[in-house]
C-alpha cells in the first residue's frame, strides 16, 4: 500500500484549519505552516457573524435565497457553481461548529439566534457575541490541537512560506520556507500544498486587516506562474475607525442591530451629536435606500458616505467622518449583542458608543480577488491549491457581510479532500523535485538583501505604497490616477533595489522578513492597479465615474493576471463567468 499522501497547509486561519481537519480526518498526514501561532491568525478579528439559511425565524429563508443574494450582491461576477455549493453546505457547517462548542448566541428555547446583515432581507447570520471569528477559529484550532496530540498534524508556527518547490514539469513538490527565529531556509516535500494565507490589506498601508495580511505568499506563487484572478475587486468597508496604526472595523452588526448612519444637515454644526434634534439630522442611507436602509451592501454604503463627505461637504466638522449611532438602543441589548465591538471603540477612541454616536469612515477591508482556482480549489499549477480569502471563488465583485467566514470554512472543507485525492494519484517525483534549486534561489535572495548597501528604508517605501493605493485604487477610480499609481509602484520597485536594512542580524530579524514581503506586495499591487485600469465599467466594489454602468457585454468575465518574468510585470487574460443558474439582472438596492 502506498504511504499516506503528505500534504502541506500554509496558513492557520479558518480556511487552513478547516482543510487540516478534513485531511487529518481522512487519515492523511499534514504539516501546517503559519507565520503566527495559528490561534493568533487574522480570522480572530471577524466580529459580526457567519451566514447560513437555517430559517429559524419563520421567514421562509432558503439556501436558494442565500445563493441569489450572494450572486446578486457580487454583481454576477462570481462563478455560480461553487457559490451554490457553499450556500447549500452552510447550514450543515453551522451545525458542525455548534457541535464543536462555539458559544453561539441562543434564543430562549435554546436554538441558534440569527441577526440581519447587509445585502439581505433575512435574519441569516449566526453570531457569538461580537467575537464570532475568534470563537470559530478557536473551535477549529481546538480540533486541530486534538489531531496534533494524536500525531496526525505537525505544526510549524513561526515559519514563513517563501515559495513553492516546482519540478521540471512545473508540478508542485513542496514548499520552501524560512524559520523566523533562526532565519534558516529549508524545503519541505509534499504531494500537494494548500495556500490559505488570507488577505492583502497591507498593500493599502492601513486597513482593517491584521499585520501579517500582506498577500506575500499569493504574490510569490503568482510570480512562479499562478494566475491571480479579479485582483481589482477590493472591498472598502463603510464603517471603520480611523487610527494611527490601523483602521479598526466597526462591524456591520452595529447596523444589523439597528445602528443608524447620519450627518448634521447643517455644514459645520457645532452642537454635540446627541443634542442635535431629529429634524436637523440627515439619515442619508435611509433616505436614498428605503428598502434596505442602513443595511445596503458595503460598496453602496461606502460610496454614499464618500458622496456625503466629498460632494455634499457634510462630513462631521468638515472632517472625513460620519456618525454611526447606537444611542437609541438600550444598554442591556447593546451589551448582550455587541459588547466586543463597542469595547474596541471605547478602548481606542475613549468615548462610550452607548452614550455618544461613533465617528466612522470607510476603510480597506477585504479582497474579493485572489489566486485563480478551479472548482476543486486548485490553481493552474498542479499541486498548488488555495482556500479562504487568498483565492477568488465565492464573492464576485463584492462580498456580502458574514459570507467570508462561511466561504473560508467551506473552501477548506472542499480543498482538504480534493488535495488528498490529487496527492494520491500523483506519480512519484524524479530526484529531489527541484528542492535544492529553489532553496538556493531563496538563499541567494536573502544573502543579497541582507548585505544590500542602499539608503531606502523599507517601512517608508511601504507607507508610500499604502498612500498611493488607498488614494487611487479604492472607492472611486479614475484611469489617469490609476496609471500614476502603477508608475509610482514601478518607481518604488526601482527604489527597492536600493533598500537598506538597518538590522543585519540573523536572529528573529523581523524587518528582514518584512522587507522580503514588501517586494511581493509591490508586485501584487501592480496586479490590483492594472486590473482596475483595464476594467472600464462599474461593477460591485469597482467604481469608475467615467464608466458608471455595468457592462456585461464587455466585462462579464473574470480577470486573470499572470506574471511575465521578462517584462517583470503582469499580463492579463479574461475568462467567461459561470452563470448557468441565475441570469444576470441589473443590481439595484
Amino acid at each position, binding site marked *: 500500500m502506498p504511504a499516506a499522501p503528505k500534504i502541506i497547509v500554509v496558513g492557520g486561519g479558518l480556511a487552513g484549519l478547516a482543510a487540516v*481537519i478534513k485531511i487529518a*480526518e481522512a487519515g492523511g498526514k499534514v504539516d501546517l505552516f503559519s507565520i*503566527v*501561532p495559528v*490561534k*493568533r491568525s*487574522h480570522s*480572530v*478579528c471577524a466580529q459580526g457573524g457567519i451566514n447560513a439559511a437555517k430559517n429559524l425565524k419563520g421567514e421562509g429563508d432558503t439556501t436558494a435565497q442565500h445563493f441569489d443574494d450572494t450572486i446578486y450582491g457580487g454583481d454576477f461576477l462570481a462563478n455560480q457553481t461553487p457559490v451554490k455549493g457553499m450556500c447549500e453546505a452552510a447550514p450543515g457547517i453551522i*451545525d*458542525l461548529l455548534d*457541535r*464543536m*462548542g462555539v*458559544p*453561539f*448566541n*441562543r*434564543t*430562549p*428555547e*435554546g436554538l*441558534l439566534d440569527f441577526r440581519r446583515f447587509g445585502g439581505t432581507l433575512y435574519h441569516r447570520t449566526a453570531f457569538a*457575541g461580537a*467575537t464570532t471569528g*475568534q*470563537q470559530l477559529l*478557536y473551535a477549529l484550532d*481546538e*480540533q486541530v*490541537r*486534538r489531531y*496534533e*496530540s494524536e500525531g496526525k498534524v505537525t505544526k510549524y*508556527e513561526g515559519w514563513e512560506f517563501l515559495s513553492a518547490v516546482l519540478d521540471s514539469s512545473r508540478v508542485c513538490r513542496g514548499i520552501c520556507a524560512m524559520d523566523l*527565529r533562526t532565519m534558516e531556509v529549508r524545503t519541505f516535500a509534499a504531494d500537494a500544498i494548500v495556500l490559505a494565507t488570507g488577505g492583502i490589506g497591507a498593500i493599502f498601508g492601513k486597513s482593517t486587516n*491584521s*499585520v501579517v495580511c500582506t498577500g506575500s505568499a499569493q504574490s510569490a506563487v503568482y510570480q512562479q506562474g499562478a494566475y491571480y484572478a479579479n485582483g481589482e475587486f477590493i472591498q472598502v468597508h463603510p464603517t471603520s475607525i480611523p*487610527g*494611527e*496604526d*490601523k483602521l*479598526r*472595523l466597526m462591524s456591520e452588526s452595529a447596523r444589523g442591530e439597528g445602528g443608524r448612519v447620519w450627518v448634521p444637515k447643517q455644514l459645520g454644526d457645532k452642537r454635540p451629536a446627541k443634542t442635535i434634534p431629529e429634524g436637523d439630522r440627515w439619515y442619508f442611507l435611509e433616505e436614498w435606500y428605503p428598502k434596505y436602509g442602513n443595511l445596503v451592501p458595503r460598496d453602496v454604503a461606502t460610496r454614499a458616505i464618500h458622496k456625503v463627505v466629498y460632494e455634499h461637504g457634510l462630513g462631521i466638522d468638515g472632517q472625513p467622518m460620519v456618525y454611526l449611532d447606537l444611542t437609541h438602543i438600550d444598554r442591556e441589548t447593546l451589551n448582550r449583542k455587541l459588547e466586543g465591538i463597542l469595547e*474596541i471603540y471605547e*478602548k*481606542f477612541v*475613549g468615548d462610550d458608543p452607548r452614550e455618544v454616536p461613533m465617528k466612522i469612515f470607510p476603510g480597506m477591508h477585504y479582497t474579493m480577488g485572489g489566486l485563480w482556482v478551479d472548482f476543486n480549489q486548485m490553481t493552474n499549477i498542479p499541486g498548488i491549491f488555495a482556500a479562504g480569502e487568498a483565492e477568488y471563488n465565492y464573492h464576485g465583485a463584492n462580498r456580502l457581510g458574514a459570507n467570508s467566514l462561511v466561504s473560508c470554512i467551506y473552501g477548506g*472543507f472542499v480543498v482538504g479532500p480534493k488535495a488528498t485525492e490529487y496527492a494520491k494519484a500523483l506519480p512519484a517525483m524524479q530526484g529531489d523535485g527541484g528542492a535544492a534549486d529553489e532553496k538556493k534561489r531563496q538563499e541567494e535572495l536573502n544573502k543579497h538583501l541582507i548585505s544590500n548597501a542602499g539608503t531606502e*528604508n523599507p*517601512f517608508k517605501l511601504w*507607507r508610500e505604497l499604502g498612500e498611493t493605493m488607498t488614494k487611487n485604487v479604492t472607492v472611486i477610480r479614475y484611469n489617469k490616477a490609476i496609471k500614476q499609481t502603477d508608475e509610482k509602484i514601478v518607481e518604488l520597485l526601482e527604489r527597492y533595489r536600493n533598500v537598506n536594512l*538597518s*538590522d543585519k*542580524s540573523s*536572529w*528573529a*530579524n*523581523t*524587518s528582514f522578513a518584512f522587507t522580503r514581503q514588501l517586494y511581493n506586495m509591490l508586485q501584487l499591487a501592480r496586479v490590483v492597479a492594472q486590473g482596475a485600469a483595464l476594467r472600464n465599467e462599474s461593477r460591485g466594489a469597482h467604481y469608475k465615474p467615467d464608466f458608471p454602468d455595468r457592462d456585461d457585454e464587455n466585462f462579464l468575465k473574470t480577470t486573470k493576471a499572470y506574471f511575465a518574468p521578462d517584462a517583470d510585470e503582469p499580463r492579463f487574460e479574461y475568462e467567461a463567468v459561470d452563470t448557468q443558474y441565475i441570469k444576470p439582472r441589473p443590481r439595484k438596492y
Partner: protein
Amino acid sequence: MAERTVKIEIKRQSSPDSSPHWDKFELPHRPGMNVISAMMEIAANPYTADGKETTPIAYDSNCLEEICGSCAMLINGKARMACTALVDKLDQPIKLEPLSKFPLVRDLSVDRSVLFENLKAVKAWVPIDGTYDLGPGERIFPQVQEERYPLSRCISCCCCMEVCPQFNESTGFVGAATIAQAQLFNEHPAGKVLKEERLHALMGDGGIQECGYAQNCVQACPKQLPLTKAISDVGRDVMVQAVKDAFTR
C-alpha cells in the same frame, strides 16, 4: 513652540543569550497613538533619542485590536497588551520590557508556547465524532451560553500567568488561563465527557492546588475573564473527583 514628543525607553536584547540594554527614543507625538504605532515609527526612523542609528524593535503583534493575544509585554512595569496601550494615557518616559516569565526570543518578543501545550494536557476541545453532517447540536439555553461565552474570550496572551506569584519553574503551575479553558469545556453538553480526564490533569503538582487565590490574574486579564470563579469551580470539581477516585480505586 517645540513639537510635542513622546519619550519611550525599551529594554532590548538581541538574542536569548546576549545581555540586555536599554534604548531611549523620542518620537513626534500624534493624537490617538498607541505603543504599537510608536514602534512602527521607530521602524521607519530607527534612531535613538541621542541620534544613534539602531535596529527596529522586535515584538509580536497581529490584530492591533486586542483579540489575537500577540502583543503582551510589560508597559511601565505592568503586564498588558501593547495595542490597547494609548500613549496619552501612560506616564512618560514609557518603559517597555518583555514578559519576564517566558523564554526571551528577542527584544520584546517571548515564547509563550507553554500555554498551547497546557491546553493539550487538559484536552481543551469537544471530542466530536466527525465533521460529517449530523444535524444540529444539542439545545443550549442562553443561561449556559452566557456562562461559557466570557470564558471563551481568552486570547492566550499569558498576562494572567506573568502576574501570578505561583507561576514559576519550581511549582510548574499551569496557570489561570488553562484552568478557565478546562471549565469552558466541562460546561459544554458534549465537552463534558472528558471532564474526568481534565480534572485528573489538573490534580497534583503543577495543578490547581498550586493556586494561592492571590487574584492577580483577574486584575491583569485584558478580557476580564471570570478567573476567580473558574478557579473555584474547577477546584471544587477536582476535590469531588479526588474523593470519587479514592472510593473507586
